[in-house]
């Protein structure tokens, strides 16, 4: 249907005036002004007549007969009682609220406990993953065994020492430790009594004659050793297995930092307050659920009240 070509050019205001004029809804003043315009404007008069015809046709539309009666039978008309009566609904809402508050309290209490014991509990978990990481960086035991078997070959050790000067990967660091055995003048630091079990097996075998029980490197001049210890001062503090990587002593702290990054060792221990963070999460979730529940109840009530 292409009604557009038949649309009039009347403004909405004029259409409103004509429609109200047909229904006799204009004030006397408005009516007088419109009638003056109708006398002067034939187009407006034609529009009025067309609208009047359309309105007349609508009013003449014959009424329809309902196809059947819509009377209600008693069974059909029985008012459906809600499953829960008013007081019961109020009671259940209160119980739900108390449950929500109880769970909230439990979550808060649990979260606080986690925060209080976090330092002690975080020590072990912080070590374990890094131990595993270090084990990965050192390499599989088979490789280490192969490397240790090559100890007897001094020429190979010397060649490896030359190469190790430019290497930063952990597997090569093990070879470098062997070089230190062949050349005692090379400064080497080995941490005292590593605690990470999975990777300890290879380490003591790698340097049996090199390290004293206190972890001080033998055959190193005092001044050199002191300087090296200062240079590697942060390393012994770390009780984690990063010490197991048998990293040769770097020449400067900057070098140490870069090698530490290469090994993928976390620079700092885990934050002690980390477990306390999730404690607020249940509160937010419960608050969101309550808001959604209230919004749903409001929507259903609005829909029912429309009738």
């Amino acid at each position: 249907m292409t009604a557009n070509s038949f649309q009039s050019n009347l403004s909405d205001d004029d259409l409103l005036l004509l429609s109200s004029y047909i229904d006799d809804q204009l004030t006397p003043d408005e009516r007088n002004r419109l009638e003056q315009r109708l006398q002067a404007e034939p187009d407006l008069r034609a529009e009025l007549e067309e609208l009047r015809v359309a309105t007349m046709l609508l009013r003449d539309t014959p009424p329809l007969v309902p196809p059947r009666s819509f009377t209600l039978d008693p069974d059909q008309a029985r008012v459906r009682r809600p499953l829960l009566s008013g007081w019961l609904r109020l009671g259940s809402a209160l119980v739900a609220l108390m449950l929500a508050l109880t769970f909230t309290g439990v979550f808060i209490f649990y979260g606080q406990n986690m925060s209080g014991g976090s330092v002690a509990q975080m020590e072990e978990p912080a070590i374990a993953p890094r131990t595993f990481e270090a084990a990965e960086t050192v390499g599989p035991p088979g490789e280490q065994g192969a490397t240790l078997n090559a100890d007897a070959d001094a020429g190979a050790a010397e060649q490896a020492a030359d190469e190790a000067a430019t290497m930063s990967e952990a597997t090569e660091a093990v070879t470098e430790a062997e070089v230190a055995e062949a050349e005692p003048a090379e400064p080497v630091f080995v941490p005292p009594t590593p605690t990470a079990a999975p990777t300890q097996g290879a380490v003591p075998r790698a340097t049996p004659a090199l390290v004293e029980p206190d972890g001080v490197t033998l055959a190193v001049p005092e001044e050199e050793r002191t300087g090296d210890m200062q240079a590697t001062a942060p390393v012994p503090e770390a009780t984690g297995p990063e010490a197991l990587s048998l990293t040769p002593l770097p020449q400067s702290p900057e070098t140490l930092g870069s090698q530490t990054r290469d090994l993928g060792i976390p620079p700092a221990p885990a934050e002690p307050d980390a477990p306390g963070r999730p404690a607020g999460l249940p509160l937010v979730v419960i608050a969101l659920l309550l808001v959604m529940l209230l919004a749903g109840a409001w929507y259903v009530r609005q829909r029912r009240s429309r009738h």
Partner: protein
Amino acid sequence: MADEERHLIEAGQHGDVEAFNQLVRLYEGRVYNLCYRMLGDSDSAADASQETFLSAFRNLRRFRGGSFRSWMLRIATNTCYDILRARKRRPAISLDAALATDDTSPHAFDPPDQHESPAEVALRRELGAAIQQGLNHLPEDQRITVILCDIQGRPYDEIARITGTTLGTVKSRLSRGRARLRDLLKAGELLPARYRHEGENHGT
């Protein structure tokens, strides 16, 4: 409000179904016609009418006085809006089917007047079908306003109460709806020839 109607309403509010059914008989023609003009087919109109009376009975306690007819027509209007909204969500029938009308059904209208000739009866049905097709093309808010004003004969303030709008909105929707219906009837030649000629004569 007539005393009898008030008594029936009070009885219905106390659960008297038979009293309420007397109200149903009073208003079912008006409600069905509104639903038919809004929805465009007799099956949907019958369903909407039944739902309207059922909803009215279940919510009769909320009726606080005033015009019971307006209250019933408001429920019918909201029921029609719900059905139209559901149709938009689940368009199970084609647009052509939705716009089609069964006004030409021989049982759709009041029984013909004894003095009416068969030609006049046919013309009356043809006019009803044309009007319904035009109404089907109107936006819903204009459609309900035109139906309430020009077919149901309700005054502006009652239409405003039924549709939950202001008097200005009613006037605006009515003027636009009438103008658009006029355009549709002219453009599509929906009207029977006799009515078209009458319109032309009026226009000249």
